[in-house]
């Protein structure tokens, strides 16, 4: 057991967990998109779970910090919020905001984070840069919406974890990056029953061909 202080609240937790996980477990919400429960190897790619820790000169992503005795962390300082709002606006600058037609509406992590950070879903001052393809229907069982995707990579990680190899991958790069199932057109894919990627997706970027409303 280790003892740490988060937002002046003392927590007694097991060793080995990440600070983000501990906070979430104890009802302290920190915005996050790419965090997967129980992974030792965080991608730390969404840049949302910043906290300030006493003794560190800059905010750090809480998913990369293992808890240890004596950590004094704050999750709601102005510099943390500034980083989170900027990261969130950048994410929304490549996101098609069309919640009414999105299966993730009302359970979408982006909506939750926007509400939590008190920012709008439309990025002010940033140019909206959408991808040309609205939906990729090449997979036999799944549809993929590039303009909804936040590229957190959780679908790829969960697929690899479940099946030993990923049937999804990141393709291209920079602003063109997408999740792709290129070449995986075999009708015997486990995808017809698995749907782990749909369940883990925080934003509804992957839907099932059978029931497009399912998330």
């Amino acid at each position: 057991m280790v003892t740490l202080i988060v937002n002046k609240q003392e927590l007694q937790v097991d060793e080995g967990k990440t600070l983000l996980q501990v906070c979430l477990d104890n009802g302290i919400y920190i915005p996050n998109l790419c965090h997967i429960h129980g992974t030792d190897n965080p991608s730390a790619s969404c840049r949302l779970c910043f906290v300030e820790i006493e003794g560190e000169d800059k905010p750090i992503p809480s998913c990369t910090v293992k808890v240890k005795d004596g950590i004094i962390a704050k999750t709601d300082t102005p510099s943390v919020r500034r980083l989170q709002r900027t990261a969130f606006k950048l994410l929304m600058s490549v996101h098609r905001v069309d919640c009414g037609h999105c299966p993730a509406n009302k359970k979408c992590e982006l909506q939750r984070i926007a509400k939590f950070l008190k920012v709008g879903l439309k990025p002010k001052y940033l140019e909206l840069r959408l991808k040309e393809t609205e939906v990729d229907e090449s997979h036999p069982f799944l549809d993929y919406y590039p303009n909804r995707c936040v590229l957190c990579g959780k679908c790829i990680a969960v697929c690899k974890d479940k099946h030993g190899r990923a049937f999804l991958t990141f393709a291209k790069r920079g602003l063109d990056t997408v999740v792709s199932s290129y070449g995986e057109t075999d009708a015997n894919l486990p995808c017809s029953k698995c749907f782990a990627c749909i369940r883990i997706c925080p934003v509804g970027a992957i839907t099932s061909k059978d029931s497009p409303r399912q998330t």
Partner: protein
Amino acid sequence: MIQENSLEEEKLILDDIASRLKAFGREREELIPILQMIQERHAYIAEDAIKMAAEYLGIAICEVYGVATFYNQFRFHPPGKNHIKVCLGTACHVRGGDIILENFERKLEIRDGETTPDREFSIERVACVGCCALAPVSVVNETVQGHMAPSKVEGLILGFKIEKEKAEREKKKSEPAQ
């Protein structure tokens, strides 16, 4: 006819790749050297070549695709007869190189990295060809075209089309004589 030709051509390419794959190990770190070999020998990586590489290394097809699309050096379309390189290096970028690229793309109705269906033209974006004083620069079939402008794009493409028509006319003329 064209279809048959290209199918035959593709078979030759795949046979060549298959024979050369044996020189590589089967570890996943061999993936990029394999892709480079294919690109070097055939100037592009065909869909079936991706499948072949995946099968040889025992990794997912989509993983090979993910790696290959990450790097600019790999192309997925055969080069056209007239290969157009548009420079988007710093100097050309400042002088509007992206507008030149867009002009070529719109005129030929393809994106950068693609080839027209008749295999006449292909477009590639490059970063600096070493003559920044002439920015914006394009390289068309090894000829450097400096101070590019939208009108020059039209002129170049029109020139190639006229040349092609002329060659066809002459071919027709000479045929009955044979």
